[in-house]
């Protein structure tokens, strides 16, 4: 019976996500309408140059169509996950609708930012996308970290990257450049 209650809770949860997703779709299309004009005005639209379509593929290679993705890519290759997870495993929502929404709005807005050359340096993930990555961790590790899940819906789960900052790539990793290898 306890199990029963928790499965219903799961269903409730994914419903929440679904409705959120719909909001995005709406938001996305309207932004698109407005911004398309500006962007076309700018001439070469990076979505083409940057093979914006790459956002629709799973091959990390396609991410580095934009040099700003080089560093994540390089550090990902040395990360504990490069054999087991590609960019999109962590940066795309794992439920059918959210997935395409994330692709669409990141693909669009990152292309835009790239075109306008307007983005923070170093890059900082946006809260929305951070939630995507957190869900991704759980998508693969939910069972292993079952103990860490909230005991009720009021409670939170600690952010995985609070402790595992560089599983995907050492971007803000507090690294130790000159220490001898054996000090790692």
């Amino acid at each position: 019976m306890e199990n029963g209650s928790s499965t219903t809770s799961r269903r409730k949860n994914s419903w929440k996500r679904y409705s959120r997703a719909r909001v995005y779709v709406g938001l996305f299309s309207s932004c698109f309408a407005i911004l398309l004009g500006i962007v076309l005005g700018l001439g070469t639209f990076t979505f083409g140059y940057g093979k914006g379509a790459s956002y629709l593929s799973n091959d990390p290679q396609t991410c580095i169509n934009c040099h700003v993705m080089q560093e994540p890519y390089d550090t990902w290759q040395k990360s504990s996950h490069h054999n087991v997870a590609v960019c999109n495993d962590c940066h795309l929502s794992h439920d059918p609708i959210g997935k395409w929404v994330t692709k669409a709005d990141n693909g669009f807005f990152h292309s835009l930012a790239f075109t306008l050359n307007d983005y923070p340096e170093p890059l900082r993930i946006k809260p929305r996308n951070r939630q995507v990555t957190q869900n991704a961790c759980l998508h693969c590790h939910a069972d292993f970290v079952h103990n860490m899940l909230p005991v009720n819906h009021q409670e939170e789960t600690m952010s995985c990257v609070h402790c595992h900052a560089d599983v995907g790539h050492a971007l803000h990793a507090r690294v130790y450049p000159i220490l001898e290898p054996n000090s790692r």
Partner: protein
Amino acid sequence: MNIFERKQEARIPFVRLEEVDEVSTDPAPWGVNWPHQYDSYLRTVDMEESDYGGSDGMTASKLEAHPWLKRLFAGYAFSLDYREARGHAYMLSDQEKTKRVTERKQGGACLHCHASVVPTYRRLGLIEQGEMDVTELELAHDFNWPAVMKGFEKMSTMDYADAHAEIEMTPDGTTASGKAHPVSCIDCHDPESMAIRVTRPGFVNGIAALAKSDDPVPHLPSIQRWRNGKKDRDYDPNRDATRQEMRTFVCAQCHVEYYCATKETLFFPWGNGLKVEQIEELYDNHKFPDGSDFIDYKHGETGAKIYKAQHPEFELWSQGIHARSGVSCADCHMPYERKGAMKVSSHWVGSPLLTADKSCQTCHNVNAQELVDRVHIIQDRTKALTERAAVAMTSMLDAIRAAQAAGATDEQLAPILELQKKGMWRLDFISSENSKGFHADQEAARILGESIDYCRQAEIEALKLRAPEAPEPTGEVIEVEGITPDDKAPVN
């Protein structure tokens, strides 16, 4: 970087083989349901060593290791017996055995942090509230904060032996007669949901007082949130705190500075803030219910009014970079460990230096030895400065006693004894804190620097009482010479 994520799917409730409820102070039945945590919890009887008595099993006497402590505590029970801490399993028996209890009268409040005492608070509270005989069912039924608070206040008026006896009269979930247990699952967990919670009235009152203060606490975001809210009720950690904060608060129920004698109900002095000078200021302005000035003891050698500091781990941690970065006590002292296909929190609470790989390495990408070395660098600096402050403290005492022998009046001595109090309070604050400065390294050094200054100032003022008026300085001040004297030395 925000360190929690909401909107996660909930944990599937545990399958329970044994029922546990609000009287289950005996950990054994919990252990049947959660064997991994129970096993590691039991390991707190183990004694492994790390430097500076971290997790030292011998509980060597600190008084023998640092004879100056005897003079620091002169006139107070701590000068009879003061030892290294050890594992949670020993907390009750060590308290029963200390000369501070066996050779001096102590208050019932002592048990607040040394026994699984909450059901007893509840029972005493219900009695205070006029119930004739309190049934086990009633005790087990729910937490009942009002009753717990009442019982807590009641026990603060009892003496240690009577209070201890009351615990043994309270059922513990297995035997109706009851048995006193050290800290147990029920002290940190809700038996219904297993969520972590705080159960200690001293902490609940103390943290609410802190929330009311205007001390900025960026490391405790939920307090900031409460302050920005309507404030129509007190800050309540069990309702308001984030899970990550709770991973610290469960420890802050005990690892804090406290007042705990029978002139007043046990309290944590956080009404002005958590910094050493804010706590001092609170004591300076505090009056006992009987109207007298707050004091812990009159110093045995000089008669100064002294405040005793005890293990302010939570307070010092609060000033450190880890707190500021959202790193909780449990992150380091209860690291996750793999148990088969699961991750569980180690309940073998002890020195993180013994588990540096799990406690530190997930965040710090260096080998365990390097991490231990870094801790030792910090602790060695703290230790050297502590010994320096101790020398200043003892030579201050000699100077004050000399001034008294020379017939200095109380009026003359008053400001000097005030300096003594400030100097000793700061030295005790850091030497009674158990991380040897690691929890906030620069803050620990700052406090010791101030301690040295106040002790030396007291010594100076005491000397001045005996020295004649200073004569007018006569020696003239030499004019600046050129940096380059004309007689040049031959090069090489």
